[in-house]
């Protein structure tokens, strides 16, 4: 390990932002906060992107590690203890200066602070706590702060940090406990779920205390309102469906088992309601605890879990832990580790993309994982986005009448998103809509035409036939690889998923 004592701030920033780049959650959304005369900063719930890096991703926060030293040895991580890399650490003052000076120049919305583990989880998190408190209290920073929690951190520290951060996150890293054990031997599922639960409960208490009514909970019609350890099982995906499972299928078997064990882990973590003992005095009576909520992140494609598995885990996290976001990070074999899949041909970006699309469907469109995937079809299709794919499998529910369908039914039409659905509902109050009207309103009909009627008529006289629509839908997709021709049927197409594609390609 090389530690350089007198390192310039430039060099530190270079090392510690480079080491933070794989963290995907660079969003500043989720909290509205006006500025204050005595301080610097405000926050917009919609979030603001300040730049876009060469990979096209949004830069919104100063995303850095506190240190890239680490006593853990996670296989997928460049900073793992067994790697011989240059190590650097910021001081709390340096973090504050950088944040404030970047913020003044409007480079950023705030700070995203993550870290490797120096000495111990508690030692590191204490330094991070110092940095955040200094930033808020000495530098009067009122902008956005996202703080990552290290598994194994003491409850008391988590309690204290939550009063200074807008969002906290603790990485789930991998969808199953067994994968976690294999790739991150120093972390345990329990060390990850427990703090998540602690923060969730603390937020609830704080909201009750302040009398804040969380509308976002209410609008998510499918979401359980009150969470208790007893109804955990009801919310978990595999319960009912497990009856219909074909046990001869090896993959099926695995999935179900691990889903079940996740159920168990969840209930364990959630049973720990009463352990909320530590108390840190809020900076002020009206302070909010982690107001922008929690998020987490999973690595995609380092281990064998199917999309079904990953989405089931996400769904359970949304339903039971009130997470605001689950992020997916396409695995990259940065250590050229032979035990892990090679990513020579690039990381599984398409798969990551599909997971984000499906995640969106869960959060805003009222879909459930089990509608999108099943044991017999556990992975998303390469060519069709999850909603199109779903619609093609449910042609019996189409076409729907634009002038009558309710909001959530409209949202199920391929090509109609949240904005379009809202516009339709607003406009049809005044007069029944025609295809012409929809076009005028800027609604893209390219895909939607196969699934809707206006005043009882379809735009073209087409039969709802899955093969026909499939061909029409993918006809725009100019580069169709691997010998797919225009005679493709839906059945054939649905065999192509990113997972097996990656495997076949090896």
């Amino acid at each position, binding site marked *: 390990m090389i530690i350089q004592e007198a390192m310039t*701030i*430039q060099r530190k*920033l*270079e090392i510690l*932002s*480079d080491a*933070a*780049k*794989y963290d995907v959650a660079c969003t500043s959304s989720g909290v509205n906060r*006006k*500025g*204050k*005369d*005595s*301080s*610097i*900063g*405000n926050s*917009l719930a*919609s979030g*603001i*992107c*300040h*730049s*876009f*890096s*060469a*990979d*096209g*991703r*949004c*830069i*919104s926060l*100063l*995303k850095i590690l506190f240190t890239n030293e680490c006593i853990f040895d996670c296989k997928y991580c460049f900073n793992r203890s067994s790697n011989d890399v240059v190590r650097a650490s910021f001081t709390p003052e340096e973090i504050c200066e*950088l944040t404030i*000076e*970047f913020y*003044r*120049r*409007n*480079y950023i919305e705030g700070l995203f602070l993550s870290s490797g583990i120096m000495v111990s989880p508690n030692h590191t998190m204490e330094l991070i706590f110092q940095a955040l408190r200094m930033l808020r209290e000495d530098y009067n920073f009122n*902008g956005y702060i996202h703080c990552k929690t290290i598994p194994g951190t003491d409850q008391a520290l988590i309690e204290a940090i939550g009063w200074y951060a807008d969002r906290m996150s603790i990485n789930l890293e991998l969808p199953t406990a067994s994968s976690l054990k294999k790739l991150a031997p120093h972390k345990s599922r329990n060390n990850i779920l427990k703090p998540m639960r602690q923060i969730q409960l603390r937020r609830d208490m704080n909201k009750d205390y302040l009398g804040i009514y969380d509308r976002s909970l209410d609008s998510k019609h499918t979401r359980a309102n009150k969470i208790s350890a007893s109804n955990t099982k009801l919310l978990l995906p595999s319960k009912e469906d497990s009856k219909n499972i074909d046990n001869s299928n090896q993959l099926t078997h695995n999935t179900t088992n691990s889903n079940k064990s996740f159920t168990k882990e969840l209930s364990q973590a959630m049973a720990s309601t009463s352990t909320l003992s530590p108390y840190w005095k809020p900076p002020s009576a009206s302070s909010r605890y982690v107001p922008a909520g929690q998020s987490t992140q999973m690595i995609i494609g380092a281990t064998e879990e199917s999309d079904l598995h990953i989405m089931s885990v996400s769904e359970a996290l949304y339903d039971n832990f009130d997470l605001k976001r689950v992020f997916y990070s396409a695995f*990259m074999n940065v250590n050229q580790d032979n035990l892990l899949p090679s*990513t020579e041909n*690039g*990381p599984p*970006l398409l798969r990551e993309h599909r997971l984000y699309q499906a995640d969106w469907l869960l959060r805003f469109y009222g879909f459930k994982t089990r509608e999108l995937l099943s044991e017999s079809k556990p992975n998303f299709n390469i060519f069709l986005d999850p909603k199109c794919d779903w619609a093609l499998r449910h042609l019996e529910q189409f076409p729907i009448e634009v002038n009558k369908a309710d909001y959530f039914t409209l949202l199920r039409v391929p090509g109609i998103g949240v904005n379009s659905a809202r*516009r339709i509902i*607003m*406009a049809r*109050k*005044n*007069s029944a*809509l025609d295809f012409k*009207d929809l076009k*005028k*309103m*800027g609604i893209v009909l390219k895909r939607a035409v196969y699934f809707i009627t206006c005043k009882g008529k379809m735009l073209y006289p087409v039969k709802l036939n899955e093969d026909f629509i499939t061909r029409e839908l993918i006809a725009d997709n100019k580069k169709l690889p691997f010998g797919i021709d225009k005679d493709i049927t839906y059945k054939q197409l649905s065999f192509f998923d990113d997972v097996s594609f990656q495997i076949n390609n090896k």
Partner: protein
Amino acid sequence: MNLTKIFVCENSIDGIFTAIYQAWSSGYGHANVKIEEECEKNTYSNIQLFSDYIHVKTNIEQALMVSRSIKTKISLQVYEMVCRVALSNYQGKGDLIYRFLVLGFHIGKDIIGHLSNEIVNKIFKINRYVNNEVHHLLGFIRFTEQDNGVLASIIHPKNNILSLVTPHFVDRLPKEKFIILDGDRGLCSIYIPKKPWVLAEVPVMDSYSYDKDIANGDDEYQDLWKIFFDSIAIKERINPKLQRNNLPIRFRRDMTEFFITDKNS
């Protein structure tokens, strides 16, 4: 034969509102009046032979009367929408607003539900377009610290959005002195702590000299920002097309992180 009366006004909210007031109360009838705002790009190529041109002198009182009636008789939301259209770069916006208000005063606040009406629709589209640029610039505006501690920024927006972005920075940076300059319009907004911010006119110089002043190369945080900007990208995922979609090239001339590549080439 009926001559169309064309009310030519200053290209500003007050100018357009004054023209609307005068055209409305002229008694010629809605069908016989038209509003045209002055702008550099307006070449008057479509000067109509059989029309009267009436030059409208901006009158704050008349303009205020129009804004007040929109707020009370239609709604605050509609008022804000109309203002955004008046600040847009849409040619013929003055007349569009006039037609929209004819409908608005007739129907009331529910006018915004009439999305399939062409005029209403146009108003919405322009609003989205202006809002998008505002939202982009809330993130893309770059301040550089001048030697005297003032934060300065230059922008070249398509719409005249200075008055729409400034309040955000006043709220955010209450203890800073700052100035945001619209390099194409010769307008700037100035804020000094504890005072209301103001909009001021400045001579339009060739923008190069502004750029150079404002870009103040001595501000050391510019380098730190560039270092961060470069190292945060994942090399295996480089994707210029995605970057361009999200951050259109036209903004980059004013953004610190693109200075070197843009200005040395």
